[in-house]
């Protein structure tokens, strides 16, 4: 990273939009906001907000790369790159030892295998189903009338209740009936986490797990999921302080290579 130019990465996810600005291989700042219904506006706002926060003018940014589901909506970006490649690049930047990335996003989850040079060798994504995604967790939080933020720590104390359904809608009614049966919240949430972890570990095994593993995405902040996942995979998982903005970080890094 010898290029001194300023680059920006914008990741438009289904729930949140993230921006990262870099200079000379250093992260100048990061920002997150809700995407809302207008992906393009979200991209513009999150970048503008970040630039004014770190005291830069838009014209100082040499290259912008967009990623995430709204990547093609960000028409002021120089290039759109998928979140697979960006998450790989982001994780590699944080820790070049990483060979496997698990990203749990709002509407999809992905597993990515990297080679010794940080290049994506293989990947898998969940298909047309919210099970094992951030959305699944949101629906469950609603059923439990709880704040998603509180999920992580609470579940650590629980013994996973059995949630057998894969379907988000059916799993929600399972949760409702568990509540009715008087099951504790801790156990229910632990069960929910276990369900997400089994979906993702199955996907991970499909492409073959290589250690060490990093988890990215906002969900990585949830200690309960992390613990459930480590148990399922039988291996420790690294989480960086930039987990939530990892896709945007990768985009900013790739912008630097353009």
């Amino acid at each position, binding site marked *: 990273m010898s290029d001194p130019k300023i680059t920006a990465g914008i990741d438009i996810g289904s729930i949140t939009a993230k921006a990262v600005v870099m200079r000379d291989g250093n992260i100048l700042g990061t920002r997150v906001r809700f995407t809302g219904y207008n992906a393009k506006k979200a991209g513009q706002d999150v970048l503008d907000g970040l630039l004014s926060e770190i005291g830069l003018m838009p014209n100082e940014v040499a290259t912008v790369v967009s990623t995430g589901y709204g990547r093609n909506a960000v028409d002021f970006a120089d290039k759109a790159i998928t979140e697979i*490649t960006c998450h790989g690049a982001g994780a590699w930047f944080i820790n070049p030892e990483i060979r496997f990335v698990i990203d749990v996003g709002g509407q999809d989850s992905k597993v990515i295998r990297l080679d010794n040079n940080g290049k994506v060798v293989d990947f898998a994504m969940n298909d*047309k189903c919210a099970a094992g995604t951030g959305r699944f967790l949101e629906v469950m939080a609603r059923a439990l009338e709880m704040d998603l933020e509180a999920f992580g720590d609470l579940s650590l104390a629980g013994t996973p209740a059995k949630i057998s359904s894969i379907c988000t809608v059916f799993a929600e009614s399972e949760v409702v009936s568990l509540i009715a049966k008087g099951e504790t919240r801790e156990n229910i949430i632990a069960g929910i986490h276990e369900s997400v972890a089994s979906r993702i570990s199955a996907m991970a095994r499909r492409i073959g797990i290589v250690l060490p593993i990093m988890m990215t995405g906002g969900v990585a902040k949830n200690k309960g999921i992390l613990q459930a996942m480590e148990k399922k995979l039988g291996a420790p998982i690294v989480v960086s302080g930039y987990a939530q903005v990892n896709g945007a970080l990768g985009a900013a890094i790739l912008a630097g290579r353009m």
Partner: protein
Amino acid sequence: MSDVNGKNIDSGKDNHRIKSVSRMKEILTGYYIDAKTARENGKKVAWITSGGPVEPLIAMDVIPVYPENHGAMVGASKMGVDLCQKAEEMGYSSDLCSYARADIACAVTQGGPIGGLPEPDFLVCCNNICGTVLKWYEVVARHYHVPLFILDTPFIHREMKKEAQQYVMDQIYEYIEFLEKQCGRKMDYDRMNEVGVLAVEGLRLWQAVLDTATHKPSPISAFDAFFHLGLIVTLRGTQVTVDYYKGLLDEMNERISNNIAMVPGEKYRLLWDNLPIWYRTRWLSDKFASHNACLVADTYTSAWSGVLPLIDENRFLETMSLSYSNVYINISHDMMINKLREMIEKYDADGLVMHSNRSCKPYSLGQYDLQKMVMDQLKIPTLIIEADMVDERHFAESQIETRIDAFMETLKS
């Protein structure tokens, strides 16, 4: 396939358009008119499965009609969802093959791109492609009150044993007896031999057309093959088919000499597995082309000519048991991986794109294992796209777009 007018088929950018397309549309239109007016002209119509032995029908001057081909037309005309829903209202499961759902709904409502298929006089069902067709054709037989002939081809794990060959051979003769009874006249075996020779000639020409894709850049893509396949399925064993593919082959060779690529700036060569996504051929072809990727070959359009080495044109009937049993989806994964290996080497493919087709279970079952085998043994990247050939409700555009883009990024890096 396209609708009769071929309007939904992508055949490349305007200046790269394959000229034979219009001839193909002409032949197919004439064919469907003949089929629709068969009664008035004193001809019999038989419905037959796509992998079924059509040559004896041609020899007996029966017009073959392919519900699956019609299903493809339904898909390309984007009428699939509506018709599938109609079938579901009638009580058919949404898990049933969308060709079956669309066709059954068309038979009942006279809907679809050509107002329904001409009524059959009898049915010929060969289970070398799947088990679904057995039940589907039973439903059709009950609906139209017509006789049904079933040709049972055993699944091939490693090789086809003598007994199995005899078992199928016996049925081929029963099939001919059945036809003689339906048509009220004897089979003319000289004519049958003639048809056999024409069928083989057609298949060779078709394979030669597909083989022009070995040239770099390829003058043709799988998306074109999906369309031009039409005649090798429906009118195999006729002179018109032979003539058509001669013309198409000439055109392809001409494109090669003029260095006309189907995907301008072709950089990546990919192999496609499974049936096309009929309602999205253009979108997919544009998507891949935007990455300078050409789908140079596929396991589907080569399935018919893939059995050529097993056919002896001078003993056509005798070799039918082998050739009809050994089609691509009636063989084991070990045999499939060998075919894939051959194709990857022959067309020098950089990657494999597999359509996990919700409708076609026998084609999609085991794709993840095949994918693993391809990655481990053949060392090329693979991508699985989940969709359905006709039922658009199973196509999630942004998910599929991300997968293709990410796959291409991986390939490029």
